[in-house]
């Protein structure tokens, strides 16, 4: 029986190649897209699953309830770890995590490694199993270094790494270490990553931060007893906050902080390790918002849904041409469910072929997908039985949806009517039209969202940031010694294309080293409390970046006392509320600075944020993490090459390449541009699949109305009027779809735009043009059929019956 069904299904597919092709192409593309999207979502959700203590290890963050709302701080001061261990019941282990890229050398080999400085308990808290060495003692002393398998191979090749002496350059000094253990490679879904581990006490500024409650610089991870849940843990942290952060609390109180409903101005909260990846408050988070994987799944569902709708519409429409077969089978003694089984098995066959095609397609597309959307997916994921099962189940559901409904509908038709050939396509067109409306609604929604995202991205790129992004090259200094920085300055100064050079402790945008940061200080001024962001720069900062001074002057070598001067931005000047801000003395950190200049506000942070108060101090002796070079040339690529060469020459250990600032600012919006790419691809897919469906439906409707068209032509209708008549039905559907989609997309995009302090407005003409676009696309899709139908000779169509 089943073979007979398959036989019929197969021959039917052959006979109706066009429909089979539309169905299969649509399905294949949709399944492939949905597969990639759901794998991505799964990958995001699978972060830190391998950690055995994922439910009991927490990252802490501090939440200050200021007068302007909640401020989150992810760093804690050094003594906090010890206090938690001693004073909070249920705390099992504690580890601070610090570090970054540092040069490591072994014999004549010199490479950069991501060295994380952690506490001894780290290896017990986190599931990074050791291949060699002892978990209890691997970080027992300060000079021990733990490597991952990969880094051990790079550094030592075949040699046994354990016991080997290496050196790590921390700050400006080389420090000796002994390799004590080798861990497995880190899974790619780990939030916490490292290439080497050393003890926390090795951090560069340890002598400054030790026992110092005033500096909070490093994130803190805590493992608690399994019996203690997050809420209880958070509660037990309150006494610690009251006792050790009393200064902060009183300063919050004095500046008008608004207590939360329990009357607390400051809380220490925790994020479980399993939630860290998608948490906005975690140092180890991806920066992805938690709705992102859901959005991927929704998009996957929408695309599959659109393809299923094609499938349903075409199957039902086509089944009417098979009316006599259905009726006959009933007369021969087929039960309804046998007929349903038959039609479902046809759908299954088609979907199965599509599944195979889509899997092949996915394998081919995966590298491009990863590259375009910056994901790291691999088909390794299919080693996970649950994913295979999930895919199979999802596929089964799709065939049930796509094949089941038509089968059910077909099996229920009245046998007499089909045998008499009275069954017409118009029956059930309500459902069909509803489904078409839904398809175009999704398409219109995605188009308008894409349009808004695109406008916003353009707006971001076009907004003047207040500093020169096109001509300034930013160089991550990567542990360069002060000597090499000076050597670089001197060498570069002699380049004809270079206008000026400066340095800063913070970058602008996100450089090729991928890091960003800020430094906020609070100080009292005339009885009030002010918070301001701070940077420390070298001479020529304003000149190099083309910052506009609205009052006073920039730092200058002609004044010997400028290291006691400060340049502030207009925002801070406003907050000082002085008629003449120049000459005012500010006292952050107990050290007096007098204001020598006011710089016009510029966007030193992303456009997500409003411009905050900023104070710029100058200290050429300070460690400049980033160097800036302004070039004036018609050949920026050549200048970049030249400067990179000079930089590599003076600092052969340099890991990250220089880059123009406009690349840096683009990098700040990576999430958004990824977002817009995904939307765009989704919109294109939705449109293409919907149009394929519309095209096929048009073919069927035209076939159905051939006779009507013939009669109308005989009665004197013009070609134009017939095309109008035929197109009208489709246009009506598209218009309804756009009307429904408009408010939804307006609402969604308004919410998205609210994430930016600076954003475009959504205009009515955007939706008007989306509507126009949808209409044009629908017209173009159906016109081939309508025009052909209208041009056909009525004699042919009327001869048939």
């Amino acid at each position, binding site marked *: 029986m089943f073979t007979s069904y398959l036989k019929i299904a197969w021959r039917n597919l052959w006979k109706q190649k066009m429909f089979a092709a539309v169905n299969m192409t649509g399905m294949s593309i949709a399944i492939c897209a949905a597969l990639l999207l759901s794998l991505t979502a799964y990958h995001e959700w699978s972060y830190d699953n391998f950690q055995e203590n994922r439910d009991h290890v927490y990252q802490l963050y501090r939440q200050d309830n200021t007068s302007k709302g909640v401020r989150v701080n992810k760093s804690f001061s050094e003594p906090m770890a010890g206090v938690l261990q001693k004073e909070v019941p249920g705390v099992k282990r504690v580890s601070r995590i610090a570090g970054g890229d540092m040069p490591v050398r072994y014999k004549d080999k010199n490479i950069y490694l991501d060295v994380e400085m952690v506490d001894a308990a780290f290896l017990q808290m986190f599931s990074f199993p050791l291949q060699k060495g002892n978990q209890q003692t691997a970080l027992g002393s300060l000079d021990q270094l733990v490597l991952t398998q990969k880094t051990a191979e790079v550094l030592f090749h075949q040699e046994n790494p354990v016991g080997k002496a290496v050196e790590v350059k921390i700050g400006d000094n080389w420090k000796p270490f002994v390799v004590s253990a080798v861990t497995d490679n880190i899974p790619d879904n780990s939030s916490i990553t490292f290439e080497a581990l050393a003890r926390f006490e090795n951090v560069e500024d340890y002598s400054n931060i030790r026992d110092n409650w005033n500096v909070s610089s490093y994130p803190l991870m805590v493992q608690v007893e399994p019996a203690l849940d997050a809420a209880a843990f958070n509660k037990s942290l309150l006494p610690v906050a009251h006792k050790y952060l009393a200064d902060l609390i009183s300063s919050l109180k004095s500046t008008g902080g608004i207590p939360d409903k329990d009357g607390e101005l400051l809380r220490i909260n925790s994020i479980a390790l399993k939630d860290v990846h998608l948490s906005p408050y975690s140092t180890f988070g991806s920066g992805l918002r938690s709705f992102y994987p859901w959005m991927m799944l929704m998009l996957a569902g929408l695309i599959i849904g659109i393809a299923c709708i094609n499938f349903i519409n075409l199957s039902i429409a086509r089944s009417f041409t098979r009316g006599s077969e259905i009726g006959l089978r009933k*007369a021969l003694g087929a039960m309804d469910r046998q007929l349903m089984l038959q039609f479902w098995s046809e759908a299954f066959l088609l979907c199965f072929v599509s599944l195979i095609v889509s899997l092949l397609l996915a394998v081919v597309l995966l590298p491009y997908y990863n590259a375009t959307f910056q994901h790291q997916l691999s088909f390794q994921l299919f080693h996970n039985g649950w994913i295979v099962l999930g895919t199979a189940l999802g596929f089964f559901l799709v065939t049930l949806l796509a094949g089941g409904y038509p089968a059910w509908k077909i099996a229920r038709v009245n046998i007499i009517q089909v045998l008499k050939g009275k069954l017409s396509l118009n029956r059930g067109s309500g459902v069909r039209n509803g489904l078409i409306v839904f398809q175009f609604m999704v398409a219109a929604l995605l188009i308008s969202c894409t349009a808004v995202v695109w406008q916003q991205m353009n707006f971001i790129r076009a907004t003047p940031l207040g500093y020169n992004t096109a001509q300034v090259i930013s160089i991550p200094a990567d542990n360069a010694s002060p000597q090499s920085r000076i050597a670089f300055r001197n060498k570069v100064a002699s380049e004809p294309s270079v206008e000026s050079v400066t340095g800063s402790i913070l970058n602008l945008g996100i450089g090729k080293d991928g890091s960003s940061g800020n430094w906020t200080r609070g100080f009292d001024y005339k009885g009030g409390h002010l918070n301001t962001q701070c940077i420390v720069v070298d001479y020529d900062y304003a000149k190099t970046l083309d910052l506009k001074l609205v009052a006073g002057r920039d730092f200058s070598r002609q004044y010997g006392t400028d290291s006691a001067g400060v340049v502030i931005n207009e925002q801070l000047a406003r907050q000082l509320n002085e008629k003449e801000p120049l000459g005012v003395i500010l006292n952050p950190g107990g050290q007096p600075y007098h204001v020598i200049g006011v710089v016009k506000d510029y966007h030193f942070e992303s456009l997500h944020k409003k411009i905050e108060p900023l104070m710029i101090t100058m200290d050429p002796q300070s460690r400049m993490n980033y160097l800036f070079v302004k070039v004036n040339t018609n050949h920026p690529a050549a200048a970049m090459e030249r400067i990179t060469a000079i930089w590599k020459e003076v600092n052969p250990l340099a890991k990250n390449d220089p880059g123009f600032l406009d690349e840096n600012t683009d990098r700040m919006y990576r999430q958004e541009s990824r977002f817009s790419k995904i939307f765009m691809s989704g919109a294109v897919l939705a449109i293409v699949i919907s149009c394929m469906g519309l095209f096929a439906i048009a073919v069927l409707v035209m076939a159905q109305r051939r006779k009507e068209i013939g009669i109308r032509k005989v009665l004197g209708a013009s070609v134009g009027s017939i095309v109008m008549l035929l197109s009208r039905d489709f246009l009506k559907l598209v218009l309804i779809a756009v009307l429904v989609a408009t408010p939804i997309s307006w609402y969604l995009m308004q919410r998205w735009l609210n994430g930016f302090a600076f954003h475009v407005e959504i205009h009515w003409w955007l939706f008007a043009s989306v509507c126009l676009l949808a209409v044009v696309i629908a017209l173009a899709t159906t016109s081939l059929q309508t025009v052909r139908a209208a041009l056909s000779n009525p004699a042919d169509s009327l001869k048939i019956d």
Partner: protein
Amino acid sequence: MIQLQKISKHYPVGFGKNEILKDVDLTIEEGEFVSIMGPSGSGKSTLLHILGLLEEPSAGQYLFQGERVDKMNEKKRTQLHRGAIGFVFQAYHLIDELTVYENIETPLLYKSLSGSERKSKVADVLDRFNMVAKKDLFPNQLSGGQQQLVGIARAIVAEPRVILADEPTGNLHSDQAKVIMELFKQLNEQDKITIIQVTHSDLNATYGNRIIQIRDGHIQG
């Protein structure tokens, strides 16, 4: 074999109803060859559909082989379709995607016979109708008469007790029609299959041994 008692059939039309059959009483014995005749719209096709359990009567009783079938559930009705009743249609209603062989085999598939049984039964029928050479052709490769032969072959392969034929020669020219009617006569006389046909043609009606005239939903005479 077949007993209709006060069978009526009407369809709702607007607020009223359209009466097709009114109080039809009819008895057909086993082995009869009955022709139902009447003008268009007289209700003869509806009567045939009711006889074939394709439609339910609005009122009245229908006994098939002594059993009430007018209110039968789908499952039992399907059993009768599979074993006792064969259909032949004016428009043949062959499945275009299946070959001659597969078309004839289809009812046996619904009867869940084993592969070898199906093979021998289909082979017998093909042999009897001299269509062995055509068994791998598709319906659209056959002439109308040949298609109707396949239709009849399909109707008898499951060895039904009664064949219901709705204008079986309506789409055929007279030579082909003659072949088909001879075949019906042969099936009736040799195989003792009860045959009920709806026809417009007086000539075709003469092949049978009884004629039922129907007019405005009433059986005449």
